[in-house]
């Protein structure tokens, strides 16, 4: 327990000082990694803790991004308002989708979430007046933290906003998975039939966690839009959902912090390799396959197992 507290503290300190250590582009990259990490972490709530594999999680990231982009562009509200809008829209849409999708389990659940996500993608793609269609919405501004408050335009300021959101989300998610509710989720993951026979219908639990995961994915998307300055349908595409699953597995399923690291690793591999070869996907694929075969717990799971041993 103590080493993990220590490493958490070290990570916090590191997050706080890196803006003065890293070069500007590295700080932007780190901001990007943290946003992707938040997305992967939210996916871990349903995938790692409840055993529900969603193939449509990108849709909620995308909803958050669009809501945030529209709020910032058309109403010029402070960034936190956009974040709230993004998270709420994602959560609200997840309610009906989750209600239908949780009727099925396993691969059928995955396909239902995929179907709904593709539907949402198509709406974003086709509703050109609102979303700009395939071109998306560009020129999303970084408004201040609140009116008259500190500007978020600098990469350092925005980094701190993102880091704060990610750390806070991580704490909230940790509290959720350790709460009576979170414990119930893990029991559902382990044995849904047993869970039912112990006196509760698993569906409401699944629905609630599905919505919570969507809210955090929406928050990640809502941070993405002002950070990158745009929202486009690509962020809702199923390929991004699939990448999210890869991030979770690489980092360590069911560890929350693992998927954040997994997302970082995933993007860093791409970032570094794609400067040297356009065939970087081969290497990403190989690294991923090796991790799946040889490190079943992902980075964090493996590290913990080694730590427990030695």
């Amino acid at each position, binding site marked *: 327990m103590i080493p993990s507290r220590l490493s958490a503290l070290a990570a916090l300190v590191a997050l706080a000082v890196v803006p003065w250590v890293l070069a500007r582009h590295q700080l932007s990259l780190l901001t990007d990694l943290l946003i992707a990490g938040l997305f992967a972490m939210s996916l871990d709530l349903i995938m790692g803790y409840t055993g529900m594999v969603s193939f449509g999680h990108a849709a909620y990231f995308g909803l958050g991004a669009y809501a945030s982009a529209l709020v910032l562009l058309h109403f010029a509200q402070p960034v936190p308002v956009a974040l709230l809008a993004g998270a709420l829209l994602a959560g609200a849409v997840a309610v009906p989708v989750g209600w239908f999708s949780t009727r099925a389990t396993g691969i059928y659940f995955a396909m239902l979430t995929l179907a709904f996500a593709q539907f949402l993608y198509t709406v974003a793609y086709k509703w050109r007046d609102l979303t700009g269609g395939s071109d998306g919405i560009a020129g999303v501004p970084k408004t201040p933290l609140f009116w008259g408050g500190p500007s978020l335009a600098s990469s350092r300021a925005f980094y701190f906003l993102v880091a704060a959101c990610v750390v806070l989300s991580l704490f909230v998610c940790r509290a*959720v998975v350790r*709460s009576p509710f979170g414990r119930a989720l893990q029991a559902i993951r*382990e044995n849904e039939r047993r*869970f039912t*026979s112990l006196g509760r219908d698993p569906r409401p639990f699944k629905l609630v966690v599905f919505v919570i995961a969507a809210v955090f994915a929406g928050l990640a998307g809502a941070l993405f839009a002002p950070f990158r300055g745009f929202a486009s349908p690509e962020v809702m595409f199923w390929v991004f959902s699939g990448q999210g699953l890869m991030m979770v597995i690489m980092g360590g399923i069911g560890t929350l912090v693992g998927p954040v690291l997994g997302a970082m690793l995933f993007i860093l591999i791409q970032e570094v390799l794609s400067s040297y070869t356009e065939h970087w996907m081969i290497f990403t694929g190989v690294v991923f396959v090796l991790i799946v075969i040889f490190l079943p717990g992902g980075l964090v799971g493996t590290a913990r197992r080694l730590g427990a041993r030695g």
Partner: protein
Amino acid sequence: MTPLLETRGPTPLLETRGLGRAFGALQAVAGVSLAVQPMELRAVIGPNGAGKTTLFHLISGLLAPTAGHVLFRGDDVTALAAPARCRRGISRTFQITSIFPELSVLENVRIAVQLKIGDNFRLLGGRAVLEASEQRARDSLRLLGLDDRADELASTLPHGDQRLLEIAMAAAQEPALLLLDEPTQGLSPEDTAATVAVIRQVARERKLTIILVEHDMDVVFDLADRISVLHFGQLIAEGTAAEIRANAEVQKAYLGGLD
């Protein structure tokens, strides 16, 4: 729950009336009427495929019947799904061990308690719920003799202990009625004897009513107050151990049913 009925004499804790379940053309359970009194230990026996597990599914609510009714404490619970029946006081174990393999032994039992006592949608905090349920879980583990393995992963327990763990989960829910589906299946003779002792102790200490499906006749005759015999989905006999032993039809069914 329904004190009105008690004035008319002893209400059975569980009653089934003409209970039946068909899978397509196959009548797995047909017209079964049972009455189990409070504190009774009832065994249900029958050859393979007699419909015992299906009967359990019908009583616990995992399957909906195609005919008949289930009454619990005099109330008709036929329309209730499994979770609701569990909350009313029917807990069960499964023929094929059904636990939460990658959770600790303690957590397996604790979850059983938590799901029974509620407040399951507490998303943050909930320390009180966790502590209260943990206390009850530890009691149950102690009762079943598993307290020294509380922190191990359930999947790492030997088979016999996993069977016990399942009983611990059900018992921790402090049900009125406990359904045990072949609790000694696959156990060595020593483990079987120990399990029989534990079941008897649980029944006594927790004042439980138990229905037991069992293949091992020694266990059945040792434990059961009364025995019901199923054959091809129908109830062909009911009575005490001695009565069942003497029943010609039962003997025929068993001789004909087994190879």
